[in-house]
């Protein structure tokens, strides 16, 4: 469960990214975060796994009080959240399979289990044949799928995905969405920032529309809603 109460975020350079956001996302929900470029979607998302800290307000994720969280406990929080980063954040010196395995290594899983799960998730995102390549040797979409695979690997209870289909063709995008649906059906909370109108409008789920750092719309089975 994710809860925010009147959260504000001003970056050190003065940019105001969020202005009084309050929201509650229940366990098992599937939420789209939509909004124009620079609206504050990524900031909203980064607060949940404490990549950024709020300037004001309180945030609870899976019972962790993000503000009060002790340094030492941060990894515990992050292990419960699988994140697909907008800029992928792959480790440049590790191969695809090492990158994906990393999220399991940190919880000291057994090598056998790691190998098995790595193969599983790489299969899921269709990158089995790129397992031994370095991220720099992949196409943009392939890198994005590695980031997705890493987010899934340790079966987190929350998946946070920042435009996970931005570099993917529609077909692959739909494959990924079906994957997310399935995972969501098994009870995983999914929060996904996206610009993909077609997906939002087809797979109707809760939509949080962010604009100028505020949640301007919160719809149960919403639509993308920005007209061109």
């Amino acid at each position, binding site marked *: 469960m994710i809860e925010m109460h009147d959260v504000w975020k001003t970056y050190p350079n003065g940019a105001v990214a969020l202005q009084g956001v309050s929201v509650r996302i229940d366990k098992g929900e599937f939420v789209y975060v939509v909004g124009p470029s620079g609206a504050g979607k990524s900031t909203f998302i980064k607060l949940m796994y404490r990549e950024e800290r709020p300037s004001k307000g309180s945030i609870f994720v899976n019972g962790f009080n993000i503000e009060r969280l002790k340094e030492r406990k941060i990894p515990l929080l992050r292990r419960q959240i699988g994140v697909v980063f907008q800029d992928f954040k792959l480790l440049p*010196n590790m191969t695809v399979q090492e990158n994906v395995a990393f999220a399991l290594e940190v919880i000291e899983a057994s090598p056998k289990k790691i190998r098995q799960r790595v193969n599983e998730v790489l299969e899921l995102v269709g990158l089995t044949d790129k397992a031994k390549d370095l991220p720099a040797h992949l196409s943009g979409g392939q890198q994005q799928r590695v980031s997705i695979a890493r987010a899934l690997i340790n079966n987190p209870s929350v998946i946070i995905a920042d435009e996970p289909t931005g570099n993917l063709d529609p077909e692959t995008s739909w494959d990924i969405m079906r994957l997310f649906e399935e995972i969501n059906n098994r009870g995983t909370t999914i929060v996904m920032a996206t610009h993909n109108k077609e997906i939002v409008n087809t797979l109707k789920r809760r939509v949080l529309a962010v604009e100028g750092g505020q949640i301007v719309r919160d719809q149960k089975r919403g639509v993308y809603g920005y007209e061109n």
Partner: protein
Amino acid sequence: MKIRTIGRHGREGLRNLSRNGWMTFASISAVTVTLLLLGVFLLLAYNVQQFSKQLESQVEMNVYVKEGAARADVLELERQLKSLPELASVTYVSKESGLDQLKDKLQENASLLEGLDKENPLPDKFILKAKDPQLIGSVAAKVQTLPLVDKVNYGKDTVEKLFKGISLVRNSGAVFVVGLCFTALFLISNTIKVTIFARRKEIEIMKLVGATNWFIRWPFLIEGLLIGALGAVLPIALLSFGYSYLLSVYPSFMYFNFAAVDLVYSVSTILISIGALIGMIGSVMSISRFLRI
């Protein structure tokens, strides 16, 4: 931490060496050059200290026996001197050999002393060396009080000058070695810092996907240790070969014998410890600022 995780960190640290190929090479070679420099200086400084000690140990005092002392009394004096715990050596020089030594000293002017053989005016004397040459003054004062001792002479002025000179060389040598150690520490940890700085994004990513600080630190620690240790290999090899070669070419320099090859082993130990320790500590410390995410 599970046992297998230790293994994982070790493998990871090792693998990072080759993954960051170029950076690894740059840092190892910086460590190499720095430790080589340090090693050369340690060897040099040790030999200079030895040299100054040897110079010191050549300081001696002449103890002149009162004229007309009986043979037995002189022997008794010798016994007394030999029983003094402060003395390292006691050498008896009879008036005859005293004259011979003087002749040697005068070289081409030796003829001046020719007539003296028959009626040698020199006193018998003892040449003494103190165990601690720095204390020669107080030892001289003590010896002076013995019966039958006429005069004690140890060239006070010259000796004091010598000691001042030696202590200047010694102290500046020590300052140098300490300074150079710090220089080495600084340069090595600086190199490691820079290479870690270049990888700060990686550290942040690891943190973001749930790694604990120590999970991230360990491989870096091992990597730093290996860089430091590998950086010590070449200096150790060069110093060992170089120093034994030097010893074979110049076993001694003026009156001084170079310290034995064993010295290289001590120096090697110092080098590899400094390399490995600083590599390790440098890594761990430089990482810390990037773990705050």
